């Protein structure tokens, strides 16, 4: 009896640590950071962090969907800048916030549809297709602005600097996008098809899934997120910056990967990505609060990424092993 109970307890703990390992890391970070700096655990600082991570996290959700389907988007940062710049320009020309926002989103979708088309139609590896888009979109942003920043955005700043009931607007948008992503991945055929395509494209096709159409949709949705991020970004910094977002695609991927998305495709969740983004946000924030030197920050960040991902993979392996054990036992009972 006692033996049985302790077995159950161990099984429970191992399930907890494997399935929820990433949440445990987040919790541990929360505790450690609070101990390290008194300024960390305050409503204001946590709201600050949420606002700081919101824009890359919105891109991250699109990136997560793409990586799940075995795709990638290296152009996210550049397309974000282009979408943001054109949104700002449209705002300055028309004075309409709605048209400006729609423009940003449409530009994001359009750029990604081009990438998606090149990927699905010409079977170009997504890495190459989006690399090309990365250069082109950046070039277009620079060409349009002639390399100059755009200033005096007036009302445009409400997207990025405003708040609703004290919660910063970008954070609200991030939460909405995370719910949208969660819904798409869990409750729609599109989501299931993404997992299937990333997990085994041949089998997905042989199961009657419209693979190309699904990939195009994934690019379009992530493009919409990127465009939205561009509008929020320019609004938050109160300027149209053609050089904005360099390297954002990698921050977005980092959050995704830390959150358990697998680069081999077929695995990943919206919640994981959100948690991954917060882990990176906590890390950046605490290092600044503690005044850690810039170069050292980069080294520490790299180290933490490796530890988090390795821990996650190890606990997942344990899970698979214990599942195998279960099956063998079941087999014996039968």
């Amino acid at each position, binding site marked *: 009896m006692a033996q049985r109970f302790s077995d159950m307890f161990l099984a429970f703990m191992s399930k907890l640590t494997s399935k929820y390992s990433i949440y445990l890391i987040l919790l541990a970070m929360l505790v450690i950071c609070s101990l390290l700096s008194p300024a960390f655990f305050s409503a204001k600082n946590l709201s600050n962090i949420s606002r700081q991570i919101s824009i890359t996290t919105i891109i991250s959700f699109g990136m997560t969907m793409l990586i799940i389907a075995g795709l990638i988007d290296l152009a996210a940062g550049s397309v974000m800048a282009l979408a943001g710049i054109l949104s700002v320009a449209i705002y300055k020309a028309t004075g309409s916030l709605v048209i400006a926002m729609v423009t940003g989103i449409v530009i994001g979708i359009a750029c990604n549809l081009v990438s998606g088309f090149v990927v699905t139609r010409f079977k170009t590896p997504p890495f190459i297709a989006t690399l090309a888009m990365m250069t082109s979109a950046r070039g277009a942003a620079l060409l349009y602005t002639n390399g100059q920043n755009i200033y005096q955005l007036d009302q445009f700043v409400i997207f990025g600097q405003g708040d609703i009931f004290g919660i910063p607007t970008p954070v609200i948008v991030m939460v909405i996008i995370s719910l949208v992503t969660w*819904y798409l991945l*869990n*409750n*729609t*055929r599109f989501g*299931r098809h993404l*997992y*299937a395509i990333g*997990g*085994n494209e*041949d*089998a*997905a*096709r*042989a*199961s*009657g*899934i*419209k693979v190309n159409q699904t990939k195009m949709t994934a690019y379009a949705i992530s493009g919409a997120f990127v465009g939205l991020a561009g509008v929020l970004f320019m609004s938050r910094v109160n300027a149209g910056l053609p050089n904005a977002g360099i390297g954002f695609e990698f921050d977005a991927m980092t959050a995704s990967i830390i959150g358990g998305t*697998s680069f*081999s*495709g*077929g*695995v990943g969740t919206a919640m994981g990505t959100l948690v991954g983004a917060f882990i990176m946000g906590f890390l950046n924030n605490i290092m600044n609060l503690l005044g850690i030197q810039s170069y050292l920050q980069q080294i520490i960040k790299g180290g933490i990424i490796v530890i988090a991902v390795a821990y996650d993979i190890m606990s997942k392996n*344990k899970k*698979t*092993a*214990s*599942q*195998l*054990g*279960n*099956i*063998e*036992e*079941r*087999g*014996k009972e*039968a």
Partner: protein
Amino acid sequence: MVDVPLLELRGIEKLFPGVKALSEMSFAVQAGSVHVLCGENGAGKSTLCKIINGIYQPDRGEILINGKPVVLRDPLEARSHKIAMIFQELNFIPEFTVEQNLFLGNEPVNKFGKIDWAAMRRQTVALLEQEGLPYRPDTKLKDLSVSDIQMLEIIKAISYQANILIMDEPTSAISTKEVELLFRKIAQLKSQGVGIVYISHKMDEIFRIADEISVLRDGRLIDTRPASELDIETVIKLMVGRKMESVFPEKKPQAPGPVLLDVQKLSQGKTFRDVSFQLRQGEIVGFAGLMGAGRTEVVRALFGLDEISSGTISIKGQPVTIRNVQDSIEHGVAMLSEDRKRYGIIPVRDVKENMSLSSLERVMGRFGIDHREERKRDTEMSRRLNVKTPSLETLISSLSGGNQQKIVLAKWLLRTPDILLLDEPTRGIDVGAKFEIYKLITELASEGKAVLMISSEMEELIGVCDRIYVMSKGRISGELQRKDFSQENIMKLALIG
């Protein structure tokens, strides 16, 4: 005089997290003999072989070669003791050529450490010639069929000049003709004093080549006896621990219904020509033939995976055009591929998602997928097919081949198709699960579905089918009614032309 055994295992024990894979395993292989291991999937055969090949290390017990204890830390060390293994799963690099794959990890080098391509080519040509295989040494592996690759795997192992050869289901993917080739090879190796450990599910094979048979069940050795003292019945009894009622399910004879699928003069380039056949409701039709006869290609084209160059397809009397998989699914066609890993399962996803993949639109509620409805439906289906899984959230790749196959079948049954195209539905599945699949196929037919079944095991076709078409070199060379079923008749038609 008692010989010292070539290979001896004493009290081997192996633990995996949460499960004891092997316990108290002791057996010996004599030089110049074939020792067959049988047992259901999960009985521990593959684990045992991996221990002999140095992939796993035993937690207890010892391994002796020629009476001397050895430690095998990895496959390279096993190779240095002249142990070679042919895997059940194919271990080749598709982008490499035949010769590169043959010499992978064992490339001939000159004194500067540069790969000696000329020597490699010479040795490859010699090997291929010696084994009577018609491939060019510079063919890429991805351009060869599964059975070609399996034969290469075998000659690769032989090329190491091993004394101890482990074969894990070497015939699961090769044709009858190639099996003969393999058996001749085995006889030759035996005469050279090589000891062979042979794993197989196929009873007729086992009794043809075995000198000794060991039966494993649940990680334990049940019995080892000379093959001459055993028969099929006894071996199956030992394997499952209970007596099989009969290998093939009883089938109620019934009058076939109307024609569901009518194929006329279907052709596809050089792979197959003028293939015409019919499939009636409630009928199980077999497709027999040698490897490469074009059976798989016909079925793939019917399912919309490959294009056809000419011919007509009618379903329920209506001519249809099938451009892609969606088209054929629309017309109530489902297909089980011979290559389950590639075309069947999404390995990183769970049982439920794999099962639901093709029929999600049937469980859509107001807010997207109705998870409760999906679970209810999938639970029912897995109960019906007797899928053994800890839960619907278990990764499909952690289940046995038989259970995976049932889930792929369930995926299609959830769409309630009228026509089922089954390509080698029992490949790599153990005896117990095979019986269940046969029973299912029979049930589905009696429910009014039309079943087309490709198999390389003639016994299986004879046991299950109502009619058999035989293909040879891309054409249908004959059709057999149940009363004419025999292995000789099938072989005759398969070898025509």
